[in-house]
């Protein structure tokens, strides 16, 4: 599964990277971010686009597994 590293990126760059990766890999991707704001934005976007985002937190970093609903 394609991995997007969006740690440290300003809003809304993590979402732009996620959107681009989902266009290239419509079956699903994994995104790593390091702030709650990006987790919320990506989860909301995934929902709009017919995906679901499962999150896992470790040491202040979140891994979001985005798959088709």
């Amino acid at each position, binding site marked *: 599964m394609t991995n997007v590293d969006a740690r*440290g*990126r*300003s*809003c*809304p*760059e993590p979402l*732009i990277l996620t959107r681009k990766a989902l266009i290239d890999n419509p079956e699903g991707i994994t995104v790593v971010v*390091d702030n709650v*704001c990006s987790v919320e934005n990506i989860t909301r976007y995934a929902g*709009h686009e017919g995906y679901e985002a499962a999150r896992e937190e470790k040491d202040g970093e979140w891994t979001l597994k985005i798959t088709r609903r």
Partner: protein
Amino acid sequence: MKKNMMVIITGAVIGLVALILVALGNPANMGFCIACFLRDSAGSCSLHSAAAVQYFRPEIVGIVLGSLVISLCFGEFRARGGSSPVTRLILGFCVMVGALMFLGCPLRMLLRVGGGDLNAVVGLVGFIAGIGVGVLALNSGFSLRRSYAQSKSEGAAFPALVSILFILTLCVPALFLFSESGPGSQHAPILASLAGGLAVGALAQRSRFCMAGGLRDTMLFRDMHLLWGSIALLVVVLAGNFILGKFKLSFAEQPVAHTDGLWNFLGMATVGWGSVLLGGCPLRQLVMAGEGDSDAAVTITGMVLGAALCHNWGLASSGNGPTANGQIAVVVCLAILLVISLCNILKGGKKA
């Protein structure tokens, strides 16, 4: 609609607090204006000598501390920085030059629209155009590159700095300048201003309220989530001004405003474009600085520097209109934004 509730409440509360602060003494249509308040605070610290706009605004301190406290409570305080700080300083400077051409940040722009000021509608069109250009840059790969974790003391330094300055204004007022006439002399009582700032800072931290983010996300992702906050703010201010009999629809004779359409447009276009490149409007920068983001703190420093030079060099507009120096400065700032946009577009495989 439920997921939008927090940002709608934030927008409504900002509108309400703005109306209350004006009733308590803040200048008309200026219950909240981050650009004006940073400009007044810069003047109070003797960074510029425009006698009419010198007052250390407690709202600024409240917003930063409100965001700091609530982010600590919810475990969201995160010391971070190192994402092109000097570029951000320059962008903050450009945003302030644009805001002082128009006479207000995006927040005051909406407060002015809600008071019937049609010049602010022209400013809003410019703001939308500027955000559109910023969105083009983002879609082309614009990035100020990533930030990194910093020490807790680095994250706390900016909130500590504004707190110390605020305490000094109370304990050693002789160090500071306070306007005796003009907008700087008009202010709500200190405690009311501080409380208003704390409430707005805390709510804006929780909801991620951002004046630039709402329009940006609507253009980029057709996501109106943040925009609902701005809409709620406008509705509350419009209703409040109608009820209080303060709504006056006109271009002429609006408080702390001028009627030069072209420069109102270009001023706010500069603010919109710069805010998108920075990742948030001036209010959002204050909130992020409270959350431990030292890049946002550097951006605010750039805004304060911009405010000081705008008055020292005669770049800021007044009710009489823009100055020739100010017009040159806005054109130069638009050119700087173009250069920064082009220089920071990362190509395909290039890592941030």
